[in-house]
């Protein structure tokens, strides 16, 4: 058997292989199930083994020193440690070997903890399995060769994907250390979810007051380049040297020219919400047009004034139509829809000389309403609702807008769905009024290529879609709203100016807050969304603060595990909030008793009373589960990182490497890794920044030399391997008719090795010979093969 293919041996001067085997007790973690002494006795009898020992904790300093002494004393040239997983302590022992002058790759780890002692209770069989694992390692290590780690330089520039609080925190930390950051944000402004919150728990400080300064610092920082309204399209390369394509979506406003004056959205005639409208004359509704996306009819109402009462507009804004024709002009000349026509009927009696005529050309833009000087044209929702909880927004209610007035960058974008220009080619008002000539309707998507050395993913969370969960009534009954909708309802810059109002415009007299909607529920998400208990308590406080109102919290458990959280819960209990321990089963809208008339009814089993309860309320706030972002899987593939069962990005180790990932140089922070509140997201953002800065500061990254090498004397030039390589590391040398491997590109998967029909490619550290020897050891053929 050829044992030396492609490898030099780190043998002692006379070529003798001397293996030291060290079996760890790991306290009782291993020793309780595996007979350590027996394994040592067994190892002593294995070929090439010069010394075998056991120790309480091999990873401890004395444990490592034991190995180092033996390397000198017993002239060891191979070391096997049978202990925990190599993913845990391989680096530790390799370092110990290296310090003692032994090439670190002449070391092999035998995992007898995670994959042996912890997974069975059968002591004899665990011991037997441990022996097999140790024998496999001893057999393999004899064929190990000296290898050198590769050092790759690290580009200082950092890419941060996601401009929420976690991404902003990391960006500021890194930028303050003098390193350049590119912050890519999908939305038009950074700030993320936190920017839509009014108050934060448990301190109730205003979210904007603590977030806006950070957003502004990020926006003004000379080391931070913000790419908002942009997405990462592709990533190639490896740690230290990533090539990233950033796709910049069509904003239609040139961020280099725009000075953020806001004239465009002040002048824009197209309003976004309500999405369905009504306009009528003297209470007679006229069907005018339908809204393309929603499919709901938009109706327009004009109250026709008496000719006699017609007076100068300035003095009496009576709210009656004065037939000025401004709406018709706007509709024809600005919008280009020609949906309203002002008729002058000469034959009619004096009072009815003018009339307005409507036709089906209306696109529902709302320009006429805005142009009407008397307020005769009023916009109402088609369902007669005053407050549209599902459509509320923080910024200007216009087709060209900024998401909030604190937006960073303070550059508007055009919403194609509602913009008149993109719907019928008319208008163009914003381009006319823009003093900077920043608006360009034919802006194309742009791709920008950047090079970075490390990547931080901080893309945050989505909330579960409530529409399919019909039992809770969201989207079905007025006044059932989601937690995020309540945040905007409560927000001082929101559509109601922070007033808590029902759909009919009046304040609620009773509010129910339903916890765990889609969380801790095997039909939806098993996980706890972690933040809902606390923000639900915050909601209860805000409701009680703003409205005279009964508040009911329907909960499974109150999980208040955080600094000051339990205290906040206690405080709310004193604030006369009614806590009902029972997951709400459903929300209904039909009364079964007089006091339920006109109310929403929350049904739940009160597990403290042992009773089904029906609680009639005016408004229901649902706390939807936090879930992974749509598209997280795709991003994970782009970056070569993993997603866990619930779709959140997978950290390298849940406890010891919470912001690192399986891919070197790629880090995660915030709620994209698992549901997290603001303090935890900020802490992770800062932790990731520290990880990244330490990588940058070192300047180079060591890559394991597990790359493919080609034995040109064996290569027949068949090129089978070339298509196997996903990194284009392999190519054909036409002249010599052999395959060649660019080891800087090789990532060491070994797929080409398994493919080569001639056995000409070997993977360092995983050669055929090494794996075959490991197999023989595992299967007990070691003695036989070495006797051959």
């Amino acid at each position, binding site marked *: 058997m050829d044992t030396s293919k492609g490898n030099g041996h780190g043998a002692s001067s006379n070529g003798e292989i001397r293996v030291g085997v060290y079996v760890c007790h790991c306290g009782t973690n291993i020793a309780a199930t595996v007979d350590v002494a027996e394994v040592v006795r067994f190892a002593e009898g294995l070929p090439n083994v010069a010394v075998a020992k056991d120790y309480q904790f091999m990873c401890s300093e004395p444990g490592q020193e034991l190995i180092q002494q033996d390397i000198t004393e017993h002239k060891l040239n191979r070391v096997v440690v049978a202990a925990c997983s190599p993913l845990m302590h391989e680096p530790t022992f390799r370092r110990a070997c290296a310090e003692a002058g032994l090439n670190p790759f002449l070391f092999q780890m035998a995992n007898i903890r995670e994959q042996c002692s912890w997974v069975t209770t059968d002591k004899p069989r665990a011991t037997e399995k441990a022996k097999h694992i140790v024998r496999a390692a001893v057999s393999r290590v004899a064929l190990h060769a000296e290898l050198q780690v590769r050092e790759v330089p690290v580009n200082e520039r950092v890419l941060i994907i996601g401009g929420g609080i976690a991404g902003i925190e990391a960006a500021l930390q890194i930028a303050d250390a003098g390193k350049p950051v590119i912050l890519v944000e999908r939305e038009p402004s950074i700030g993320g979810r936190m920017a839509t919150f009014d108050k934060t728990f448990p301190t109730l400080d205003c979210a904007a007051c603590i977030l806006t300064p950070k957003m502004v610092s990020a926006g003004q920082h000379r080391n931070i380049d913000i790419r908002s309204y942009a997405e990462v399209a592709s990533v190639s390369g490896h740690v230290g040297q990533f090539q990233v394509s950033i796709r910049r979506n069509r904003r239609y406003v040139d961020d280099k020219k725009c000075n953020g004056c806001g004239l465009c959205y002040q002048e824009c005639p197209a309003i976004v919400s309500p999405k369905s409208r009504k306009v009528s004359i003297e209470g007679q509704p006229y069907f005018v047009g339908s809204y393309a996306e929603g499919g709901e009819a938009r109706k327009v109402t004009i109250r026709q004034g008496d000719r006699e009462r017609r007076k100068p507009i300035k003095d009496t804004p009576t709210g009656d139509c004065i037939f000025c024709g401004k709406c018709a002009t706007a509709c024809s000349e600005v919008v280009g829809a020609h949906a309203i026509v002002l008729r002058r009927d000469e034959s009619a009696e004096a009072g009815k000389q003018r009339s307005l005529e409507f036709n089906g050309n209306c696109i529902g833009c709302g320009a006429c309403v805005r142009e009407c000087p008397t307020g005769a044209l009023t916009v109402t929702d088609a369902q007669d609702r005053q407050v549209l909880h599902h459509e509320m927004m923080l910024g200007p209610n216009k087709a060209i807008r900024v998401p909030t007035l604190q937006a960073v960058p303070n550059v508007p974008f055009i919403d194609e769905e509602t913009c008149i220009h993109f719907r019928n080619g008319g208008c163009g008002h914003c381009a006319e009024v823009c003093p900077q000539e920043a608006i360009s309707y034919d802006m194309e998507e742009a791709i920008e290529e950047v090079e970075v050395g490390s990547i931080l993913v901080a893309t945050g969370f989505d909330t579960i879609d409530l529409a399919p969960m019909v039992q809770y009534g969201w989207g079905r009954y007025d006044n059932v709203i989601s937690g995020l909708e309540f945040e905007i309802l409560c927000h001082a810059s929101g559509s109601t100016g922070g007033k808590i109002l029902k759909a009919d415009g009046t304040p609620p007299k009773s509010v129910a807050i339903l916890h765990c909607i889609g969380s801790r529920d095997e039909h939806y998400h098993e996980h706890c969304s972690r933040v809902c208990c606390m923000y639900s308590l915050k909601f209860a406080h805000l409701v009680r603060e703003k409205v005279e109102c009964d508040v009911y919290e329907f909960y499974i458990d109150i999980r208040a595990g955080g600094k000051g959280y339990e205290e906040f819960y206690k405080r709310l209990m004193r604030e006369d909030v009614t806590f009902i321990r029972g997951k709400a089963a459903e929300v209904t809208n039909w009364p079964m008793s007089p006091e339920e008339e006109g109310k929403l009814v929350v049904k739940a089993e009160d597990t403290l009373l042992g009773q089904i309860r029906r609680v009639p309320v005016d408004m229901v706030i649902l706390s939807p589960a936090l879930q992974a972002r749509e598209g997280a899987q795709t991003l994970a593939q782009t970056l070569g990182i993993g*997603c866990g*069962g619930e779709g959140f990005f997978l950290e390298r180790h849940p406890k010891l490497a919470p912001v690192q990932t399986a891919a070197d140089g790629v880090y995660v922070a915030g709620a994209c890794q698992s549901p997290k509140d603001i303090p935890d997201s900020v802490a992770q953002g800062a932790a990731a920044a520290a990880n990244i800065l330490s990588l940058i500061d070192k300047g180079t990254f060591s890559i394991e030399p597990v790359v493919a090498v080609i034995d040109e004397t064996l290569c027949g030039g068949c090129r089978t391997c070339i298509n196997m390589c996903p990194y284009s590391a392999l190519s054909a040398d036409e002249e010599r008719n052999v395959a060649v491997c660019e080891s800087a590109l090789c*990532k060491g998967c070994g797929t080409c090795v398994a493919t080569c029909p001639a056995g000409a490619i070997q993977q360092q550290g995983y050669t055929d010979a090494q794996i075959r020897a490991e197999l023989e050891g595992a299967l007990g053929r070691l003695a036989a093969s070495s006797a051959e």
Partner: protein
Amino acid sequence: MSASADFEPTIIGFLCRWCSYTGADLAGTSRVKYPPNMIPLKVMCSGRVDPSLVLKALADGADGVLILGCHPGDCHYHEGNHKTMRRVPMLKSVLQQYGIDPARVRLEWVSASEGDRFAEVVHDFTEEIRALGPQKRVESVA
């Protein structure tokens, strides 16, 4: 079910370093129990598993071989597992020609977060091989 119940099969597991080996570690960390019949071998990618290595394992006394990789689409090396997915059926047809039951080789996907699933797969496969009985030695196939 001809095999005797006290037959303890020897199984070789090729575990990809990124998903399945990590998943196997997680099973351990979570103290999930499964039969100790499988000896794990770590490879960087399931795509590294040369069919001849599987044949060698069977020739050297393994009663079954389990190949575990990342779920399709999750491969750390983009598509190494796709190659394995195509190789294994071909390998199975070769096994048949050798007179080895193709059920003795199984390819499964276990992600880094699927400790429970890892234990389940090993358990199922061990029981299946136990039911198949010991693998008759085929000399010098590899």
